[in-house]
């Protein structure tokens, strides 16, 4: 019998492949290592990210699900809640207790009840509705608030880039 973290990840993988939610695909990069996943997230419809397919990498800690995984987009992203190196900054990925930005409610934080699916769905909704108070990428947050057109244009360029089209 393998470790509990591994069993849980296997169970989640199974569930995600059997019953994949719309616009999301995720699974381990290699079957030898269940602690590193790759995820593909489709840009939510009706937003400036519509049409894009954004790859991301999830790294799970050995004590998953007691601690949250880390998520990082492996493509270029321009979004108020995504650091310029691709790290995602949403409350569901933060363990209760540490609050990097000092604004999150503990009810939104990580708990073992959360799952990969919920994380990815949260990310989708984050793409649709950025939280411009978090400020992982301050430039993006200001642009989102004040110059929405420009923001949309940059987002569209990123979308085309993820699809392999020239920007």
């Amino acid at each position, binding site marked *: 019998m*393998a470790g509990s*973290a591994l*069993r*849980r990840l296997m169970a*989640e993988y199974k569930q995600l492949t059997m019953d994949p939610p719309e616009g999301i695909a995720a699974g381990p990069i290699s079957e030898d290592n*269940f602690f590193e996943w790759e995820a593909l997230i489709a840009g939510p419809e009706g937003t400036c990210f519509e049409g894009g397919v954004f790859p991301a990498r999830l790294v799970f800690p*050995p004590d998953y699900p007691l601690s949250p995984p880390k998520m990082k987009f492996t493509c270029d992203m321009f979004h108020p809640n995504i650091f310029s190196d691709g790290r995602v900054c949403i409350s569901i990925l933060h363990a209760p207790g540490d609050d990097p930005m000092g604004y999150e409610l*503990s009810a939104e934080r990580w*708990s073992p009840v959360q799952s990969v699916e919920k994380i990815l769905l949260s990310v989708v909704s984050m793409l649709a509705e950025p939280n411009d108070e978090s400020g992982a990428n301050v430039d993006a947050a200001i642009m989102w608030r004040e110059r929405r057109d420009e923001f949309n244009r940059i987002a569209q360029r990123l979308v085309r880039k993820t699809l392999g089209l020239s920007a």
Partner: protein
Amino acid sequence: MQLLISSVCMALTSAVIGNAYYQKQQFYPAVVYITKSNASMAVIYIQFFVIVFMFGKLLRKIFLGTLRAAEFEHLLERFWYALTETCLAFTVFRDDFNPRFVALFTVLLFLKSFHWLAEERVDFMERSPVLGWLFHIRVGSLLTMLGILDYVLLMHAYNSTLVRGPTVQLVFGFEYAILLTVIASTAIKYVLHAAEMRTDTPWENKAVFLLYTELVIGLIKVVLYLLFVVIMAKIYALPMFVFRPMFFTIRNFRKALNDVIMSRRAIRNMNTLYPDATPEELRQSDNICIICREDMVNHSKKLPCGHIFHTTCLRSWFQRQQTCPTCRLNILRTPTVNSTAIPRPADEPANAAAAAPAAGPPGAGANAAIINPTAAATHETAQPHPNGTAMRNPAVPNFADIFAETNNLGNGIPNLAGIPPPPMLSPFMMQPPFAYFTPPIVPPPPMPQDLNAFNEEELLSMEGNLRKHIEERIKMLRNISLMVDSANILMQQYQGIIARLPPPVHVLPPNPTVAAQSVPVATDAATAVGPATTLTSAPVCDKPSTSRASAVEVKSHEGHQNSVTTSNTVVNASEKVTIEDLGAEEDIVPSNDEASLDVDSEDSSELSELRKRRLKFLEERNKSPTTSDKAD
């Protein structure tokens, strides 16, 4: 790249050796020539390191196979730290600096690297989906070999220190002792992981074993480091090069200690406070532990909020957070309240008896329930009864204490559940009949004094929003309106009587009485009425309070006026607090059910019946020597 470097190195070495041999023609002169030439020695040193590196690669291939990217990264990182520390160590022993010394440190670094790799491998066991027999053979032999080497080198260092006094061997002896503890903990982990893998079911106590291993090994390491620092500081200089590892060791040990304490607390809490989930409960839920996503067959616990988890899953979560994983109910707060609630029902009869020995006939249902508190209140306001106080004290103040305690205990994460669990209601239900009629001499009310002590979330969490709670509230409000109506009728009757009587001398005194006595009614009722009554302290026509007012009035006719009014000023002061407290928890509302159910069906005849009883009670009280006012 590596191949290139080693071939270049090989070529250089052969060139150096060839050159020496070519110049001297003989073996010994050639050796002497090489050792005399710095350039040649440098080449030979580099060759030596390359050979060591290659040997390391070979061993790695044999014992570990290919390294994972993460393993390699960690190895590199640790290696560079170790290298800098070795260089720092050189500064302490600069007098003994010679090739042998460098060789010894190289061996140490070499062995250290394999210790780290072995550690990583064993940690990886838990996360690896499939492990063949090759893995076990490799890890087993590697651990054995490293253990033997460590032991041999440690003994060598020990003996040489004994024979030759403290030399650089002291450092090696200490380093190998540390490595031996690393091997020991790795071996224990390996055995635990392997044992778990052999079984088909998760091994529940493994986490606990691991925790204690960590703790013991951490303790040994800390002791070793401290000893070493002390010895080194005495003989040589302060060993700067062990400060970094020592710091990490102490930090790990602290964490292990903390983990063990938290784990023990979690286990104790779970064993004592939460019931095991029964098979029926498991059947009702979907029977899957949301933490590990596996079926719950046995060993599952039910939290006060009704959520069920595996015992082991809960334990490992509680080590980090004392909240329900699903609803984030703060589990440390709830049980404390619960446990204080247990003695409460038991206290109640005693209190009631002590407070109002001459109360209305027992078992008289609602009427008795209404009379009793009033009786208790009037009786005790009239005379500070030592007996009642003594009986009451143990029951009431500890609640406040404990509540304050739980507030401190709470780890800062407010309970956002918003669902006070049903079991919590019962203690509060029992309360109002006596808790709010506590005599003024026993000031600590059962609930915290000030609403300000609560933050918004805590207040929110007290306010149930389940259907049941709302139903209770509506029922309560209905009861209140009924009581107000009935009080109104009574008031009118009294006013009629008063109009017919000649104006009494003591018209004014009853006024404060009214205000004070109104409080019990308010507490009986609910928060909605509460504040209103306190505000209307002066006017006589305070509707909800009229029934009590009348009681007092009647009493005053009987000549106990003075004592009542004097004590009332005190009541006034303290009762206000009670009302505020009441606001803090609306859940006491259901407590009134029993009483108010009868109020529902109450008609005017019943009201007069009630009045008669009260009068009778007051008469009885006056007659009774034990309870009559000593103040008079």
